[in-house]
């Protein structure tokens, strides 16, 4: 027998290599297509506000891109499960569900890399400092990780590709359009703030606003609070993916 207690990390990178690197090598235009979409709302807000809300748009676009790449994992998983049946091959193998999820999540990240680099650069341009880079990276990883786990969990319960696409689009709107991700939380009635604070994306946007040195951070919100909520969501969604996602069908 081959050595099967290899590090799951290597398995995850190999899955990412197969589904990401090899695909992109033969379909490089995918990078361009994936890179353009996160800039659509940035462009609209820039034009409509005459540049006034560009910093919000940058924060919002980065959060939206990360949510999109995380949840897109769910669409990929649905596709591999229902169309290719390739997930069956992985289930009946030494690959664990979390390793499979991690591999495909890395693959999604690869597709979004140009957009992420561009948006992260804009964050730095709009007031980020070298010392805030670790916080920027942490913010990116936290929201990407939790959204990937959520995408994996959701898709595992979807029997059809179309359902997965619909549900994921819906969740995307709930997480990035309705909460104060593209606009200041102060635009919301205060009664709705607790609801906004319940969204991980609100905190991701606020953390980016913090990094950019914007003076729009609400009273009562702190970096520690935002960080704690994000970590809690990451742990929660990974636990959900690990225990409640359907790997072996019942």
């Amino acid at each position, binding site marked *: *027998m*081959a*050595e*099967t*207690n*290899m590090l799951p990390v*290597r*398995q995850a990178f*190999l*899955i990412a*290599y*197969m*589904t990401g690197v*090899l*695909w992109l090598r*033969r*379909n490089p235009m995918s990078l361009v297509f994936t890179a353009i979409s996160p800039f659509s709302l940035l462009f609209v807000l820039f034009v409509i506000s005459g540049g006034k809300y560009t910093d919000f748009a940058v924060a919002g676009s980065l959060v939206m891109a990360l949510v999109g790449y995380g949840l897109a994992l769910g669409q990929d998983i649905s596709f591999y499960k229902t*169309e*290719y*049946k*390739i997930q*069956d*091959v992985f*289930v*009946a*193998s*030494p*690959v664990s569900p979390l390793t499979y999820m991690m591999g495909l999540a890395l693959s999604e990240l690869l597709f979004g890399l140009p957009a992420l680099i561009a948006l992260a650069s804009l964050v730095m341009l709009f007031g980020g400092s070298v010392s805030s880079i670790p916080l920027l990276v942490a913010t990116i990883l936290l929201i990407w990780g939790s959204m990937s786990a959520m995408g994996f969990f959701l898709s595992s319960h979807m029997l059809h590709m179309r359902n997965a696409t619909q549900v994921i689009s819906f969740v995307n709107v709930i997480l990035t359009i309705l909460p104060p991700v593209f606009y200041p939380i102060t635009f919301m009635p205060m009664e709705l703030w607790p609801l906004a604070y319940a969204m991980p994306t609100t905190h991701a946007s606020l953390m980016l606003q913090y990094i950019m040195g914007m003076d729009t951070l609400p009273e009562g919100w702190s970096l520690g609070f935002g960080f704690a909520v994000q970590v809690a969501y990451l742990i929660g969604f990974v636990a959900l993916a690990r225990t409640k996602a359907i790997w*072996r*069908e*019942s």
Partner: protein
Amino acid sequence: MLAIDAAGVSKVYKGAHQAALSEVSLKVEAGRIFTLLGRNGAGKTTFVRMCATQLMPTAGSINVLGYDVVRQAKQIRDLISIVPQEGRPLRALTSWDHIYNWLQIRGEGKQTARDKTEEILRKLELYEARNRPAMNLSGGMKQKILVAMAMATDAQLLFLDEPTIGLDPVSRRQVWSAINDWKAKGGSILLTTHYMDEAEMLSDYIVIIDKGKVITQGTIQELRRVIPQNIRVDIARDGLDIDALEPYGSVVDTGAGMLRVFTFESAVRELSELALGRNLAFTVSPVTLDDVFVYLVGGGIGDNQNGRD
């Protein structure tokens, strides 16, 4: 040693009114090719998926290579490999990409993965096309990629769910050869197929499932004995009346302008003379697995003559 030991296994899907499998008990000996035959929806894939730890049984117990599928799935997954029904390779990846990387994911080193990939690609005549993306390959070649992924591993038990579907006759024989090589190395195989010739060619033991229940099992020789007669004679119908043949055995209208008589060696001479006397084409052959299958689950023979046992 048993590769699979299933006892009283049932499966009822959520929302279904009928069991997909009902009280199935099977023992698959290691180092043998074990074939499940059945019509579409008979429950073959359900059984395979439960054994391969992809689907939970509703009742009963299944041990695969000594491990329980419910409690010890992880141990089983290290030892098995599958070709899923209606699977497809990833369109942008080549056959080499699929197999080489899959072997590494399963824990092989790079050099071993390279050697094994080359070996299986050559065996299945995919080597020349190893650098072509799957989207540019024929349906048969795509199917062979999935077969190669499973057979390149050093798993102890292979689950092949209709592995030769869509393959041309030459490609099917290449897969058969690879399956026999696998067995020769001591591996075990659980195969499902609709092709009777494939089952006859490969199987050490056959189980026929219908409507979720095992209706018979045995070696090919044992199954052939399910039909009381051992010879079949196909005679061109061409004005011939079924009544004229019934004294010789069980008669079936094959629907292709031929009448099929299931009979014994002793009646073959008389039937030949009858056909020759009327200048009708005829063929004589032993009863095949196909006949047995139709006899048991198709109702074709039983509908027209003495009925099933």
